[in-house]
């Protein structure tokens, strides 16, 4: 730049007004500060999370009791009246099958988590590494998820933490990876659905609204970050 008049300089200075913060960041920061997370969020959201998890376990437990009682009653009826062939037991093995699919998902998530932790550790030491093993695990998990939607909130939470850890690994950017996007979407969908059924404070509702807006815009990673703020 050679010669410049004072008027031109002031004009160019005023063009710097175009510098603005990222909208998503500004929205999140506002929610985060007013949510006063350190105290309120923990007190309110954690017991509800625990309750929803306990409800999940107790519902499985009560189904089992019901199943045993039902089987015993049928054997008794069958033994006495010979009606054993009247009832079909086709549905009975479904529960163990459903449980095993969730166990398989849990195992996938645990493996992924280990790989991500390894990756984070290697990144810290500055050694050159390949992220292919993490990508393979993500691909396996995504395929598994397509056939077996997650129903256990604990698995969702573990997966959310894994994704957050992955996002924080320096020098690794998998945000454009299709499988990673799918994983984020699944987790965010599950979490929003779960949180909508939960009693939230006004601040937490605001964060949830922000998360839903981000989800609708396809910004799943940002949406997850907002959700984790509610859950932490």
């Amino acid at each position, binding site marked *: 730049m050679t010669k410049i008049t004072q008027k031109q300089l002031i004009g*160019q*200075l005023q063009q*710097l007004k175009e510098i603005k913060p990222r*909208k998503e960041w500004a929205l999140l*920061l506002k929610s985060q*500060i007013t949510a006063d997370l350190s105290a309120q969020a923990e007190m309110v959201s954690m017991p509800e999370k625990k309750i929803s998890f306990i409800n999940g376990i107790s519902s499985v437990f009560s189904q089992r009791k019901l199943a045993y009682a039902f089987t015993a009653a049928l054997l008794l009826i069958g033994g006495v009246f010979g009606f054993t062939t009247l009832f079909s037991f086709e549905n009975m093995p479904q529960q163990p099958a459903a449980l095993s699919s969730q166990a398989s998902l849990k195992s996938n998530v645990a493996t992924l988590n280990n790989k991500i932790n390894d990756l984070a550790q290697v990144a810290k030491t500055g050694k050159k590494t390949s992220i292919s093993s993490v990508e393979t695990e993500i691909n396996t998990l995504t395929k598994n998820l397509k056939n077996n939607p997650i129903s256990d909130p604990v698995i969702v939470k573990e997966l959310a933490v894994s994704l957050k850890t992955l996002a924080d690994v320096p020098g690794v950017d998998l945000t454009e990876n299709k499988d990673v996007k799918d994983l984020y979407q699944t987790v965010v969908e599950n979490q929003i659905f779960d949180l909508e059924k939960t009693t939230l404070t006004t601040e937490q509702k605001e964060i949830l609204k922000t998360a839903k807006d981000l989800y609708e815009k396809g910004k799943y990673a940002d949406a997850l970050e907002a959700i984790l703020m509610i859950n932490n």
Partner: protein
Amino acid sequence: MNNLNEQFGQIYDQYIDKIYRFVYLKVSSQETAEDITSKVFTKYWECLKNPEEEVKNPGAFLYQVARNAVVDHYRAKGRANTVSVDVSSEIADPGTSAQEKAVLNADINVIKKGILKLKKEHQDIIIWHYLEDMPIANIAELMGKPEGTVRVMLHRGLKDLKDIIQES
């Protein structure tokens, strides 16, 4: 609490762009600007919650906290108030489309680099007056200096900036 939230929300909406811009122009990094800006508003929220700490002029408070936070940032980094050209060339990394537009404009980038080379007080006055349209009287109050002094500093700062840009 809701009243406090509303009060905070109004000030936040009014100042978030200004404070971020003020900090960004002084640190030339999106990440650092976000970090410092979040600290500034967290500090304001803490004061708002504490009945013993009254904030009479939120704008002045936020700018003051931001100035101190920027100084702390450079102190922690062990750097001088001015930033080398090499460092200031890192400006071009950030994210929003509006910001990218500004960065892509070569002349604007030169201005940003020029601002970073100014004295800290000149930086503040130029940003406040020409970017935030703050009257001289308010700047004088904010800096605790007479209006005449601020006018002279503004004139000198602008002249220095012009020289820096013409030399580049």
